């Protein structure tokens, strides 16, 4: 089973597995690896303190000392972009994969049991989709205070819906298959049937979607910071940096262009991985739904 092969690859099998990867998967993984390493070793990679403001060196264009130039407060943009990895990638990861876990579980349960449970869960899902997210996030921030915890809660409330939809649709197909019926007649407990037998077969589409979702979530996070509803200053979040450069775009293009580019590069690496995963997991053609 390819999904498991990737998830629980033994050290020796890793190379063989990588050998089977498509070129997009290889390139994407390499890009992501570089980004992650740069984030982990940010103190080594970044030439300057990302928080230090030097009012004599404001708005410098990219040059030998400051690769990405400096921002309006005289901070080194390259260092800020590098430190930004720690925020955008980590928060993006959490708001993608935590909802995936319970989203798939909810979808699997709704699909397996059907009936009233399905009806109730699906109406909850509809509600989460139909509620304007902007109102939700502002309200959560107003009640709990701004910061990453509010983003987590607001996103957790809605981000599970797509996974639930996907898992439910797959479960509806899966539940009438022979091996499921066999497991049932053998008297296995329902939880075992759902999570041990069905799950590996219904999670594929969610895994593939999760990469696209990861990209969208990084965009979401930076969009929130752009609106002043996300990560708080002076943290070097990419979207916040784009927002800070907004008023300077005509005269100092680098402040918003380069952090935006960081988002594009990170997003592209994840998309490449998603595309490769789709192929590797036997989904012949990737369709982002």
């Amino acid at each position, binding site marked *: 089973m390819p999904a498991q092969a990737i998830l629980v690859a033994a050290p020796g099998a890793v190379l063989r597995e990588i050998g089977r990867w498509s070129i997009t998967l290889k390139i994407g993984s390499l890009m992501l690896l570089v980004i992650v390493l740069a984030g982990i070793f940010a103190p080594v990679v970044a030439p300057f303190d990302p928080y230090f403001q030097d009012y004599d060196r404001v708005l410098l264009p990219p040059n030998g000392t400051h690769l990405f130039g400096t921002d309006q407060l005289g901070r080194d943009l390259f260092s800020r972009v590098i430190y930004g990895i720690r925020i955008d990638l980590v928060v993006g990861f959490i708001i993608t994969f935590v909802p995936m876990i319970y989203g798939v579980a909810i979808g699997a349960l709704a699909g397996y049991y059907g009936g009233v449970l399905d009806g109730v869960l699906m109406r909850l899902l509809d509600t989460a989709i139909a509620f304007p997210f902007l109102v939700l996030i502002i309200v959560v921030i107003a009640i709990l205070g701004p910061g990453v915890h509010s983003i987590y809660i607001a996103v957790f409330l809605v981000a599970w819906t797509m996974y639930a939809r996907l898992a439910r649709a797959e479960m509806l197909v899966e539940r009438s298959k022979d091996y499921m019926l066999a497991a049932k007649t053998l008297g296995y407990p329902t939880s075992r049937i759902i999570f041990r037998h069905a799950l590996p077969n219904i999670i594929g589409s969610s895994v593939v979607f999760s990469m696209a979702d990861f990209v969208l979530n990084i965009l979401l996070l930076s969009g929130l910071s752009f609106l*002043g509803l996300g990560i708080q200053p002076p943290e070097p979040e990419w979207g916040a940096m784009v927002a*800070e450069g*907004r008023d300077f775009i005509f005269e100092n293009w680098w402040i918003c262009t380069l952090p935006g580019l960081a988002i594009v590069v990170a997003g592209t690496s994840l998309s490449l991985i998603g595309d490769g995963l789709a192929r590797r997991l036997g989904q012949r053609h990737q369709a982002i739904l």
Partner: protein
Amino acid sequence: MKRTEVKKRHGLTAAIATVVGGAMLAAGLFGGSAALDSAAAAEVKKGGTLTFARPEEPLSMTGFTISDNGSIWAIEQVCDSLIEPDDSGYGLRPALAESWDISDDGLIYTIHLRDAKFSNGDSVTMADVQFSLDKATDPEGYLGFVFPAMTREVVDGKTLKITLEQPFTPLLSTLSLFAANIVHKAIFEASPEDFGVHPVCAGAFKVESFERGSKLVLVPNEHYWDAQPHLDKVEMLYVPESNARILGLKSGDYDVINVVPLNQAKSIEADSGLTLEVAPAFRLDYVYLNHARAPLDNKDIRMAMNYAANREAILKVVFFGYGEVPNSFMPVINYHCDAIEKIAYDPEKAKALVAGAGYDGTVIEVIAASGDSVARQAAQILQQGWQAAGLNVEIIEYDVGTAFGLLEEGKFFSMVSYITSDTNDQDFLASIQADNTVFGGFFSSYNNKQVTDWLTEARSASDPAVRQDLYCKTQQQVYWDAYSVPLNFKPFVNAYRNDVIGFHNSVTGPWWLKDVWLDR
């Protein structure tokens, strides 16, 4: 007849520093009457449409209930009060009142109404005046608290007698407030909602159409009591995005734009077809402090925050040099005192004060309204300085509603914001900010009996010298009590095409569009 003293402004070094790039040096250079004189000197051309892009949106044209500058400054074009600010905004001049007399004891004001008409042709009657003032001065009304206790009596169809219980020198200024505009009683009463879209007033312009969220179109009020506006039409556009305003101005789509992003002001100066106007404002950008909340209840901490505030850097980096490091807790208004010494930038002193204050490490939160890039940048500079002084500081961004909600409930430490004055009398803001009995110290909980006494006395004093002295004492006391962390006396920065003549920002905020004409 006694007139309110009109003092020349002082304080800001640059008066109205207008920079003209092109050949149009003649007019529009100086605010106040200078603009009018030079405009009169040149041949005034009538007609044309002025396209005017603003970052604030007019929400309603009813002055009794709104408080946003988007609405107020639009209403000022359409509605007149009995008395109005003069061209510069520092003084007053008659409007719907032709003249007035003040009794020697300062208790009785006799107002003589002018023959004026509303924009629908109906005469402005004493009934309209009474109705409007009843609404404005209603203690339950929005700005009711700025009016002193008074009785109003109609002497005849043209004369109104106002009797005060106590002398109240700022009364004429107060009557010039937008909230004291005279509205058409019958039409307002018929439908206050409809009035918010189609107001009937007696100002120079009237509303031709009002498309909420995008455009307000004004045309001259042919029944206006004074000289007709030069323009045929004003299109006031709501353009919140500053880049869009700049581009629109450069491309010729807009004739005038308000609130030029300061980092782009230089490029406008460099453009030979455009004029940059830097006009003084009754505005102070400052950090609200909540004295009721530890550790800000400790004056040493508040002083440390002032000493550790790198205002020169903020002026340079955030405001691009536009403005002046303040020496007051309130904006520069008529009784501003230049002599008060500024709190210097002194990181060492700040450190020592924090060390000696028994600070327990409580995180001091600084609120910046989301989307307010100026507040956001200033907060980050302040944070760096304050942390160096030994304070724990966190910046938090809230939407405006939440931010002011927290202010209202006293659940805040500090907030980067600003204050502006709608009238030219020192009393208005001094009392709101520093007299605890008037407004609780404007969210600060500042309470100083001595200051309250001084301000009470200044309110009823009629001798300008006495008032000057009292306001100087107040300024010295409150500013050096570390009432707040003042950041900048920020001016208005506008830009317009060189063929726009006679545009200038008055200190309270609006512009006299009736004096503007187009040289094309």
